[in-house]
């Protein structure tokens, strides 16, 4: 069992677990966190899981752990591992069941003060416009051909269907679609689950939140992103719904055999994997990219619905009710990238599970206006607490495969949270603080209570302190719609 005493301090926000801690580790683990955060991190099995990830065949550099880390299934949530092409492996468990779960931020010029009395109406309008809840389908019913197009074209498919603008697509990670998706590698079951769920939020920790820009830390970056102090924004958190869950399920099952075929020994069955250049690895990569594109399209449709509801609720009450897109970012994904590792440029598959990409200034894949400032990084807090907009840095490219944290990170299991927090009381508390709440279920609300999460401000301090991201603005919630 990995212990906190196995950590070597590299600096105020960086720690290392050397390969000497366990004989099967191929690379060390680097943790980004403050000293104060260690106790909470050591309470669950997340460091053990990071060490398990360091045993994956073909893993290179270091396995990285973000300060919002918590225990996942096989691979820690808040973990990053790069495996080298072509012989390294790809692991569905290191990407997650909700493939391309991510966050989109829309911003407006509407000042909260202008429309303060309308937050109830706005919350209801967003709740009515954006289908949410367990297993719920939406207004779209895709046939096989449309589903295939959505899985190939991602955000661009949604835009062509009338959901959103070219600017939305341009301001999405990878331009809203991953090349190399392979719909033929997606099972009939995944297709069946995906057809009715396009344009839906789902349940669990997924949400739509109205937030106000509370404090600006980087005036220039905020100006470029169109974020003004006191103005309203809308944040959307969701993923690939049942489609992605089924793709991951299918390949975790299929890879149980692949590990035997390729003689791969693993400390946890949930980490099953296959070489990137194997037929199994290639099939998963193609299906995973299809699910990633489904998620980009899903958030694009939801953003359009949210934008219409926002404008409808505030029209005539504020001057400019348009919501423009700041950025859309994935935090459960496997990406083909090139990085400098051990003094050489190497092509790798970067698994990010509960971790975002955070590329620094100058990256060509960014929209031209963002190249001088770096890639926006969206970090939602827990319900009722702050969220953050950061940017990637040169240091993130050198130290974390251009990666950053994705949120606050749980400290309490959902069951614990439900036992100790009452959903109705929590709702009242949030409303007393001026946060309007619309929730599918009260027990579901309790599971996502802020007490069940780490302090997102401390998480952001740690990544900023380590230099892998830079603060741009802090957002404060004023209305929450929970699935």
């Amino acid at each position, binding site marked *: 069992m990995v212990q906190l005493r196995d950590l070597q301090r590299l600096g105020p926000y960086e720690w290392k677990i050397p390969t000497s801690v366990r004989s099967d580790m191929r690379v060390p683990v680097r943790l980004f966190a403050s000293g104060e955060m260690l106790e909470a991190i050591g309470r669950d099995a997340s460091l053990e899981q990071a060490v398990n990830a360091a045993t994956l065949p073909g893993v290179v550099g270091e396995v990285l752990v973000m300060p919002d880390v918590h225990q996942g299934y096989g691979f820690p949530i808040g973990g990053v591992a790069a495996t080298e092409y072509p012989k390294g492996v790809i692991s569905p468990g290191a990407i997650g069941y909700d493939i391309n779960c991510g966050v989109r931020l829309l911003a407006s010029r509407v000042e909260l003060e202008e429309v303060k009395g309308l937050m109830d109406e706005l919350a209801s309008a967003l709740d009515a416009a954006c289908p949410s809840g367990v297993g719920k389908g939406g207004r779209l019913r895709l046939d096989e051909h449309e589903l295939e197009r959505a899985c190939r074209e991602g955000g661009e498919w949604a835009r062509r269907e009338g959901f959103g603008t070219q600017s939305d697509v341009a301001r999405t990670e990878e331009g809203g679609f991953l090349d190399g998706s392979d719909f033929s590698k997606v099972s009939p079951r995944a297709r069946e689950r995906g057809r009715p769920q396009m344009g839906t939020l789902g349940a669990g920790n997924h949400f739509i939140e109205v937030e106000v820009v509370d404090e600006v830390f980087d005036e220039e970056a905020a100006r470029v992103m169109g974020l003004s102090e006191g103005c309203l924004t809308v944040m959307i958190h969701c993923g690939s719904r049942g489609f992605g869950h089924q793709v991951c399920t299918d390949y975790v*099952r299929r890879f149980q055999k692949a590990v035997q075929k390729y003689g791969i020994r693993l400390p*946890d069955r949930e980490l099953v994997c296959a070489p990137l250049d194997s037929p199994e690895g290639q099939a998963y990569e193609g299906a995973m990219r299809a699910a990633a594109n489904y998620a980009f399209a899903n958030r694009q449709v939801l953003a359009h619905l949210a934008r219409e509801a926002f404008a409808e609720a505030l029209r005539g009450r504020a001057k400019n009710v348009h919501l423009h897109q700041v950025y859309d970012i994935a935090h459960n994904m496997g990406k083909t990238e090139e990085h400098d590792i051990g003094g050489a440029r190497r092509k790798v598959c970067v698994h990010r599970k509960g971790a975002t990409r955070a590329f620094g200034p100058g990256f060509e894949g960014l929209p031209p206006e963002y190249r001088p400032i770096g890639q926006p990084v969206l970090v939602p807090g827990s319900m009722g607490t702050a969220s953050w907009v950061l940017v990637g840095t040169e240091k993130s490219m050198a130290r974390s495969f251009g990666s950053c944290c994705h949120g606050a990170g749980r400290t309490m299991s959902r069951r614990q949270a439900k036992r100790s927090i009452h959903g109705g009381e929590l709702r009242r508390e949030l409303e007393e603080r001026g946060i309007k709440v619309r929730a599918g279920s009260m*027990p579901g609300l309790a599971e996502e209570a802020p007490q069940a999460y780490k302090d997102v401000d401390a998480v952001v301090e740690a990544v900023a302190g380590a230099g892998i991201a830079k603060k741009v603005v802090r957002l404060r919630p004023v209305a929450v719609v929970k699935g």
Partner: protein
Amino acid sequence: MFELMGAEVSEESRCHRQLEIGADDREQLLVSFLEELLFIADSEELAFDGYMLRLVDTNLQARLEGGLIISRSKEIKAVTYHYLEIKESKRGLKTSIIFDV
């Protein structure tokens, strides 16, 4: 699993299903069986509360009784192999299994 989901099942629309599942080992069989139930719940809105199970090595024959889901409070995304354990006990087989929610 259906209890965890908070699934409320209609008493009026009762139905039966038969499943036959084979796997390489017991753990895989359990995961495959639950995945099957999860898929039926998501695609047909059916949950089961009556089970007749016949287990021979790593093959399972199941006769299920259930009904339409009226409501459910929690989404289960997937059945995982994480820390999956099946033990023999005096009362039969006992397992600890983790769901992605």
